[in-house]
C-alpha cells in the first residue's frame, strides 16, 4: 500500500541538491534569461512523476515513483559546461541516501544520471549540456 508522493517536495529537494553540488554556480527551476548576466548556470525541469497504478478500487495500490528531472547546464565556454556536468555525474550518479535538505528532503534508493548530449547556441554564445536524472523513491 502506497501513497502518492508530493511533486512540491521533489522540486524543493532537486533545487537543494543541485545547488549544493555545483555551488557557487546558480541553479534555477527553469530557463529565465539569466544568460544576460550569468556566465554559467544550471536549470532543471521535473517530468514523469508517476507511480504505476495496480488493479482495484483502492487508490493506494501503487508501485514506486521513478521521476526524471532534466538538468540543463549553460556556460559561455564549452569546457566549463563539461566540467560542471562532471561534478553532477560524480556526485549524483549512483547516489543513494538523503535527497534534498533535512527539512524538505527524502530518502532515495538510487539516482541514475544519463548524460544526454551537448550543444551550442551561436546567437546567445551559450554552450549547453543536458543530462537526465532518474530517482527511485520508496513509497
Amino acid at each position, binding site marked *: *500500500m*502506497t501513497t502518492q508522493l508530493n511533486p512540491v517536495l521533489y522540486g524543493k529537494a532537486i533545487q537543494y541538491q543541485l545547488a549544493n553540488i555545483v555551488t557557487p554556480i546558480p541553479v534555477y527551476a527553469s530557463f529565465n534569461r539569466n544568460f544576460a548576466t550569468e556566465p554559467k548556470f544550471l536549470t532543471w525541469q521535473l517530468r514523469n512523476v508517476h507511480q*504505476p497504478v*495496480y*488493479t*482495484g*478500487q*483502492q487508490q493506494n*495500490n*501503487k*508501485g*514506486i515513483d*521513478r521521476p526524471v528531472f532534466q538538468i540543463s547546464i549553460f556556460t559561455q565556454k564549452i569546457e566549463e559546461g563539461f566540467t560542471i556536468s562532471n561534478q553532477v555525474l560524480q556526485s549524483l550518479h549512483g547516489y543513494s541516501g538523503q535527497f534534498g535538505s533535512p527539512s524538505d528532503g527524502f530518502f532515495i534508493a*538510487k539516482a541514475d544520471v544519463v548524460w544526454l548530449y551537448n550543444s551550442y547556441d551561436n546567437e546567445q554564445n551559450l554552450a549547453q549540456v543536458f543530462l537526465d536524472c532518474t530517482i527511485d523513491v520508496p513509497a
Partner: protein
Amino acid sequence: MALINKVLPGYVATIWMQEGASPTPLTDAQLATWTGQVADIIGTEAGGTGGGGLLIPVEAVPAFGSDDAVAAYSVAGARTGAKITTQNQVTSLNVTSAWNPADPAQLLIREDGYNGTTIRTYVIAVYDGTDTVAYAFNARIGGLKWDMSPAAEGKYQFAIHPVGGNSYGWSNNT
C-alpha cells in the same frame, strides 16, 4: 440488485482473503452464498460488507477458472478415438504484488506459505461501482518468491493453489 450487465474493464477486479492466522474456510455451499458469507470477505470499497477479509494488493488479478482436463481414449486399429471431459481442476493463480513488508495480507500469505497446510477462502470480486460479482474458492499458498530487480519496486510473488473439487462458487450481491 441485478447481476452486472455491462462489459467491464480489467481494473474492476480485486482479490480478497479471509483474515486471521487460523481461518475456517467456507463450505462448498457457503462459497456460493453472498449474504453473511462471501460478502463479509469483500471490503465495502468493492461492494461487500467487509469485516472478515483483507485486500491482497496485487498488480493484476491473474486468469482464474478451471484447467481444461480430458481423458483421451484410442483403440488400436480403429480410425477415431474419444475425448471425455473429466472433472476440471480449479486453476492455480500466480500472483505478483508490489512488496510492502508490513502489509497485513502479505504477512498472512507468508505465514500460510511457511505452514503449507492452511486452507483459506479467497474471493475475486468484480465491482462496477454499484454491484458485485464474486468468485470464491478455498486454497493453499505455495511458491513464495521475492524478486528485487532494481528496475522497479520489489515484487512479492506467490501461487494460490485451490483445493479443487467443488470448492468454489459464484455469487453476487442481492
